[in-house]
């Protein structure tokens, strides 16, 4: 069931588009903001609310890097693995993150604090290597910097 709060936030988006289904991305993000991820149950409810089939909405939800169809931690670390970050060595950044957190790509720490995911180019190639944690971009990284950055996220 969508909460009243979620319904209100989704309805506020309708004004910007000609059709209900057009808010699907915004609606998925609203649900994800409240719940952390988009479960099958809420996807079905949301599809009904937007007058789409669940399959149609799932074909949208599964299309995007930033919509999570599995549970994630309180903080999501996105490691840029594209070309400019690769040239300057994102692999050593990733190795350091793996060792520090004790998890691999696609995994979540046991305390539910961090999920580690790869991501395509984050558009900050002049400051490579970069990662994004939640909504924050972190640039020109090295191992020492990463330790300081991780400490900011509880």
């Amino acid at each position, binding site marked *: 069931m969508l909460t009243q709060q979620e319904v209100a936030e989704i309805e506020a988006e309708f004004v*910007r*588009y*000609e*059709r209900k*289904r*057009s*808010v*699907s*991305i*915004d609606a*998925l*993000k609203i649900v994800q903001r409240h719940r952390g991820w988009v479960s099958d149950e809420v996807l079905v409810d949301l599809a009904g609310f*937007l007058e*789409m089939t669940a399959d*149609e909405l799932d*074909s*949208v939800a599964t*299309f*995007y*890097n*930033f*919509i999570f169809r599995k549970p994630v931690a309180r903080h999501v670390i996105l490691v840029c*693995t*594209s*070309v*400019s970050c*690769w*040239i*300057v060595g994102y692999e050593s950044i990733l190795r350091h993150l793996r060792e520090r957190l004790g998890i691999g790509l696609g995994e979540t720490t046991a305390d539910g604090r961090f999920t580690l995911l790869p*991501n*395509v*180019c*984050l*558009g*900050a*190639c*002049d*400051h*490579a290597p970069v990662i*994004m944690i939640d*909504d*924050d*971009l972190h640039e020109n990284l090295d191992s020492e910097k990463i330790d300081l950055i991780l400490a900011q996220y509880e």
Partner: protein
Amino acid sequence: MERPLTRNIRPGTGPLPIDAYEKTGGYRALRKALQTMTPGDVVEVVDHSHLSGRGGAGFPTGKKWSFVPRGKDAVHPTYLIVNADEMEPGAFKDRLLLEGDPHQLIEGIIIAAYAIQADIAYIFLRRAYVTAAHRLTHAISEAYDRKYLGRKILGTGFALQLYVHNSAGRYICGEETALLNALEGRRANPRSKPPFPPVVGLWGKPTIANNVETLCNVPHIVEHGAEWFRRLSHSMDGGTKIYGVSGRVKKPGAWELPMGTTIREVLEEHAGGMADGFKFRGVIPGGASTDFLVEEHLDVRMDFGSMQAAGSRLGTGTMVVLDDRTCPVGLVLNLMRFFAQESCGWCTPCREGLPWTVRILEAIENGQGRPEDVERLQRHTRLLAPGHTFCALAPGAMEPLQSALKYFKDDFFRHVHEKHCPWR
């Protein structure tokens, strides 16, 4: 040297608020357009300016605008879409303009919308540009407060609503017909053309999609004229260009320079040359989907025509440098993984062909390649060439691969013969 696009942008400080933007002459071009020019006049001056699309395709902007049905054939609502889905690996130039001077973009949007008589404009913004989203949203509300947006703009009969659509991260959304499906709330596969979006676009209505940098040029063209704009350039394409460099150079970054500046000047004078201990081997000049150029091309001018004549494309104008300590096979493998992942999966050659190139490249990079694998890769560049796929994604992916096979062929064979990557 004039730098109209970046004149208000200071590194490390936020963008100009609307008062300060107006003090530097901001929104003067909007007044001029709405109060002294017809929509047709605006299309004409932009056409004469030789402004061409900065998203990478280089299509003449004025000509694109002229495809929208007008007069008694006009259809409403007509839409303007700002393509701010900058997801090409190696590209970060639109970020500079979005974060650095949002009012310049908004002014360009309103003038462009007036030219094509659009009723609604969407900024299609990539999810990762969080700072840009905040700054744009704030600047748009300032523009509404000043009545530059909404009904009866500047007391004229022209009206425009401007919305930000925050996407959720998928490269193909930058393709304009995929972008239309994304905005409509559908899975963002590209559409077949014709019909073309200027006639049948968003929700079946006339729609123009322009890149961020393209639209940022529009206020300056309206204010200073077509001839002034053409004179900014060293080439047939008018204006300046934001060039960027990443990779092992001394000072990675982005700079506004005359269109047609040479690769060498951008690399050596602005990016400071190669970092200590690294030698130049090649460059992907305009983002991941452009052909490599090498040392012999350093004096080629970075404009649409010259880059094409040299066997590549200007693309986004943001180059990625290959140095002598980086494996070209590994680099191309990295690019192909990106394209294979970001393929929408709609057409078979792209969905199946790109993962095959990844597997072959992995085998070569890991020392398990066979000599015939190099020929196999070559064949893929023909199988996934333009005309064999539904959209430009796979042909774009083949550009760095085919040129790597041309300029770095020995490196591919070294992997095969030595049975390991010589760089590892």
